[in-house]
Structures are given as C-alpha cells and as structure tokens.
C-alpha cells in the first residue's frame, strides 16, 4: 500500500566517502505516525457537513483502522440503512447514540447487537492547499 515516492540521487563518491553516511538514518516518513497497521487500514472520504463540529469537514479523507474497538468518544464509520456514516460513538444505557453536529443528524440504535462497526477513524486529512497551487502533481493533494 505504501510506495516510496522519493528518488534518491546516486551518491557514490570517488574520493573521500562522505563521513555522515555512516550516521545516516531513514528520513521521516509521514506514514510512521498516520498509518499504524497498514494491512487493516482503509480510506474513505467524508461526504457531508454533519461532523463539522468535530473538525471533520466535507471532502476530508478518513483514515480508518479496523483493529481498534470503539470507546466512548471514538469517531466511527458504520453501515446503516444503505449508507456508510461517520459519527461519534456514544453508548448509553439501553441504546447506542451515534452523534453528529445536530440531533437530527445523529443516529440512535436501539438494538445494539445488530450494529456493526466498520472501523475507528484515527485521523482525518484536511486539505488546505490553495486552488492556484492545485496544478500538476499538487492536484493530487487529498484529491479523490
């Protein structure tokens, strides 16, 4: 899933070997801290404004990990009556509340057993690049 995007220039040195080469460490890779379990991570996209109160806007990319079990306050993705939804997980005494900005957008599940979680959202990606920069390969920033 993860591809090495960088192209390293050849650094074969004819004369003295660069002294820092022996101390070289791999450069930081954003996936170290964004995708913990690559084999069980899925990506989806937020398609509504229902979760703006949680800083999840329309078109944000959702990083979803299936290995985590939701806890109170988790942002979860689940399938409900024909659609996938992104909501906050709020279990209550005899029901499960899947909260959004407004009560109208929240979903209440009475039969908790029938509910299945697709995965827990660990991170969302919010593209803030300006339109005039969205050219060439920069048009790929969170574009999907």
């Amino acid at each position, binding site marked *: 899933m993860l591809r090495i995007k960088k192209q390293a220039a050849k650094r074969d040195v004819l004369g003295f070997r660069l002294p820092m080469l022996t101390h070289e460490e791999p450069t930081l890779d954003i996936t170290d801290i964004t995708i913990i379990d690559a*084999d*069980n991570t*899925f990506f*989806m996209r*937020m398609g509504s404004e229902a979760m703006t109160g949680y800083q999840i806007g329309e078109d944000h990319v959702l990083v979803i990990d299936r*290995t985590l079990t939701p806890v109170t306050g988790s942002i979860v993705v689940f399938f409900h009556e024909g659609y*996938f939804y992104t909501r906050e997980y709020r279990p209550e005494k005899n029901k499960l509340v899947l909260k959004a900005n407004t009560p109208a957008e929240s979903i209440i599940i009475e039969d908790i057993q029938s509910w*299945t979680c697709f995965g827990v959202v660990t991170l969302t990606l919010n593209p803030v690049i300006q339109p005039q920069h969205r050219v060439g390969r920069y048009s790929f920033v969170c*574009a*999907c």
Partner: protein
Amino acid sequence: MFAHVDINNCYVSCETLFQPQLKGRVVVVLSNNDGCVIARSNEAKAIGIKMADAEFVVRKVLEEHNAVIFSSNYALYADMSARMMNNLARYTYMLMVYSIDEAFMALGNISGLDLEKHAKMVSHNVMRDTGLSITLGVGPTLALAKLANKSAKKLGRDYLVLDTEELIANTVKTFPIEDVWGIGRAYYTKLQELNIKTAEDFRQLKPELVRQHMTVQGWRLHQELWGKPCNVIKDVAERSKGIESSQSFNNYQTELEKIEEATAMHSATIALKLRQQKSMAMLLTVYIRTNKHNVKHDQHYPSITVKVPFATNSTQEITKICVQALRAIWQPGYNYLKTGIRATGIIPAGEVQYNIFSNYDNSKQQMLSGVMDEINARYGRGALRVAAEGYEKTWKMKQDFLSKQYTTCWKDIIVTR
C-alpha cells in the same frame, strides 16, 4: 500442528464488505468476460447455482431470485487477499499461501498451548481486522487440517480443532471420501469400486493396497489421514513452470491489428511476471481461437511455439517475438474470440547461456525493462507500455458489472455521510 484457513466465498465476501446491504441476498461473481459463475454467496448456493455455471444458462434463475451480479474485480480481490495473508502471517512462524483465498499455517508443537483457544482467537481477530469471514481447521497434518476446515463449514462453525485421535476418528467416520483433499474424479471412481465411501473407510485400507491402487500421492494422503505428516509447508513459492496470459475479446475480432494489440498486452504481462519471479523463458507459445460454441462460424484454433534465441524476460523482445508468431498463424476470414500466450522453459535469470559466437547483449534490455517497471510501479500499471499494445483497446474484456476499486484507487474510495 497445522492450520488451514480459507476465506468464505472469497470474492463475494470482498464485494459485500463494501456493500453490506447485499448480505443475505443471492450474490454471484462472474469470471473474465462475464462468462461463468466463479463465486457464490451461501444464498446463491442454496438456490442451486453451481460453480462454473455459464452465465447465460443461469441468467433466468438469477433474475427470478433478484440476484446481484458482479464482474471479477481482481484489483479488489488481490488487495483484500494480500491483507488477509499479511494478517495470518502474524499468527505463525511459517505461512504457505496456497491460493488467493487459502493458506496453511504452521502452528508448531508448543506444549501447553490451548489450540481451541488459539484457533478461536486467530479466527476472531482476523475476521474483525480484515472484515472477511474465514474458516479455520487445525490438524496434525495438512490433509487433516484441510479436512477439519471442511468439517467446520459443514457444522456451520468458524473453526474446528482435530488434535486428538479420538476427535479425528469421530470426524472421518462420516466425512465423504470425495471431499478429501487430493481425491479427484479418477481416484473417486476407483475408490467407489472398492466400496470406499468415507475417509474412515479409506483409512482402514492397508497401506500396501493403497500403494497398489493409487500413486505415491494416494499413499501420502493415507499416511496424513492417520496423522503422519508427509506434506510439508514451503514458505517460498516454487518458480512456476509455465506462465500464461490469455483473455477473450468482448466481441469477435477479424482484424489482425486488434489481435496484435491484445497479443502485445499479453506479452507485457508475461514479461512482467517473469521479471517479478526473477526468471526468463526459452519457449513462447502463441494461440488464437474462434468460438467453439458458435456452430455457424468456421473454426480455427492455431497455435505456434517459438524457441527464443536467448532466454528472455524483456517486454520488447517478447512482444516482438509473439507478434511475429501471431502473424504466422493468423488467417483472414475467421472470427477470433480469444488469444493468449504461454511461456515455458522457464529458467532462473542468472542461468542464461549465451552463445560464444554472438554479440548479443541483453544488459540494455534489462535496464530498459527495469526503468519501465519503476515507472509503472509509481504511476500505475500500463502507464508506460510498448506502442504495439495500442491505445484504444476496443477489444478489452467485458466487465459490465464491475464494482469499484475501494482499496486500490483513490477515485473509488467510499464516501460516508
């Protein structure tokens, strides 16, 4: 101890994971060109849809049951399969991937390990993490692990552990012989003559008698059913002996040019596969076929095998040779439906013999192929290709019911509400 794991109704499970509303419905996945049924949901099995049923034969039944039909979405299945195998590898020191949806795991002989608990844990975790439902069978040999898996399915369970002779004896008693791994039609007929109906009947045969009636494979199976391991788990895939790439066209092709394009595409696929397994081919077979089911058409199934001067895995060389070979067998006036290439005489890339009298130098080809692979790995398969492959691909395969590439294409990721 070994475990055999497979994904239940693999292709259908991959589709329903992303379209959960289809759970409980009749769902089938069709083969290349939407030809025949290659995967069925349990509901599809229940209404009598068989594996490899031709689509046009069962079309009416499928319509009656409001079935959901998919074309093969191999990008999705391959990605989900890789995720599954990577997950399984976490629970074993050796995993043998047996096919896209099947694997054997070595469990070792850890004293004090509660296999029942372990199997339950692996099955639960893998299903939660991948979203695909699996069945897991555990036994002292590969054959018994596979038998345990089948029994688990029959019992409607997620896993079954056969770790004592008592449990094994109880299970094989009622296990039909034709469902045992390695019993094909020929063996089955032979065993029926001997009045062997269950795996237990087969176990009761004397080893000498098994040897006499069946090959060493049969004898090994006999040993394995008694819990004596004969087959071993290999974690390194053997270099395949032959590589084939073929596909039917979406409609009849009479023009050489279009068939050449398809041949060039198959050449590229074969060359890439050869390079991926670090080998080269010495023989290339090109074939074209008309539709044998269409009695109104004249039939023509020519094929030609070319021995290449020097074993190769270069896209350019293979394309050149195969297109030339195709020109030699193609004849005007026939309606061709399928073309394919088979590479045989496969040797490791390091063992190529060069002719002392030739100045053939394949290092240039090697570098070119290397650059091509790098570019295609970065920008997607087929981004850089040989011009002979053509641009429009009007002959491309029929995939009328293709689902999205949820996990391999950014444009296709699911949008949530």
